């Protein structure tokens, strides 16, 4: 049995039954047309030529298999389109609900800045930006950001729903919101 080193070198002492000779087909590292090395290089030397390539021939499929694959791809596309439409409809519903509970000034800010301001009972001012997480900024009296807050509904809901839930909780139960939220001082 040849040594492993022999199997991976071009050592001329490697015997015919080593791995190297299996791949090259001879004992001195040159290649012949009938071995693997030759087929990877299309030549008889170790130099790689421009015509060297490996091609994989596609497996033969019956017309029934091709049709089944086409139908499966079509069903997947339809499912993807349906989910995308449902998500768009959910976003639209959530947007309408949010806007219904914003003041005209908050709606204007939402349109212009993709965010609106909320004043809590403690007189603190928060900016709720579009998004689900890390989308709330706590502002000082000059409008400068002093902290970022991250808290959102436990269920995955459209972003406008998240923003409405955040708004209502900041207004009605700020202490609890601050207890739950991850707060990062800026």
């Amino acid at each position, binding site marked *: 049995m040849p040594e492993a080193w022999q199997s991976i070198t071009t050592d001329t002492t490697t015997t015919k039954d080593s791995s190297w000779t299996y791949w090259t087909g001879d004992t001195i590292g040159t290649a012949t047309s009938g071995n693997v090395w030759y087929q990877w290089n299309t030549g008889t030397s170790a130099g790689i030529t421009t015509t060297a390539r490996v091609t994989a021939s596609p497996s033969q499929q019956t017309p029934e298999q091709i049709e089944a694959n086409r139908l499966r791809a079509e069903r997947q596309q339809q499912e993807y389109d349906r989910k995308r439409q*449902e998500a768009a*409809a*959910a*976003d*639209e*519903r*959530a947007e309408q*609900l949010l806007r*219904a*509970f*914003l*003041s*005209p*000034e*908050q709606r204007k800010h939402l349109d212009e800045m993709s965010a609106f301001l909320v004043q809590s009972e403690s007189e603190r001012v928060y900016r709720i930006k579009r998004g*689900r*997480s*890390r989308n709330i900024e706590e502002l000082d009296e000059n409008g400068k950001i002093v902290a970022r807050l*991250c*808290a*959102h*509904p*436990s*269920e*995955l*809901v*459209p972003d406008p*729903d998240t923003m*409405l*839930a*955040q708004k*209502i*909780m900041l*207004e*009605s*139960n700020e202490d609890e*919101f601050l207890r*739950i*939220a*991850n707060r990062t001082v800026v």
Partner: protein
Amino acid sequence: MSEMRVIDATGDTKVIWDSGNRDEVKAARDTFEQLKKKGHIAYAVKKGGDKGEIIHEFDPEAEKIILAPRIVGG
């Protein structure tokens, strides 16, 4: 007519009841209590930016109620 909006993945699900209709009130109350048990938070709100108020009991006379999934830290 009163309405309850349950925030969910579809945007929201609307539940409407007439405070004079016992069956409708019962159906709305059942939904409310079921979701409260699940951890939802209920707010009595008015449209137009007015601040909401947390409620713990179903109020058949409430104008609007929003039920939101509990808030968790992100």
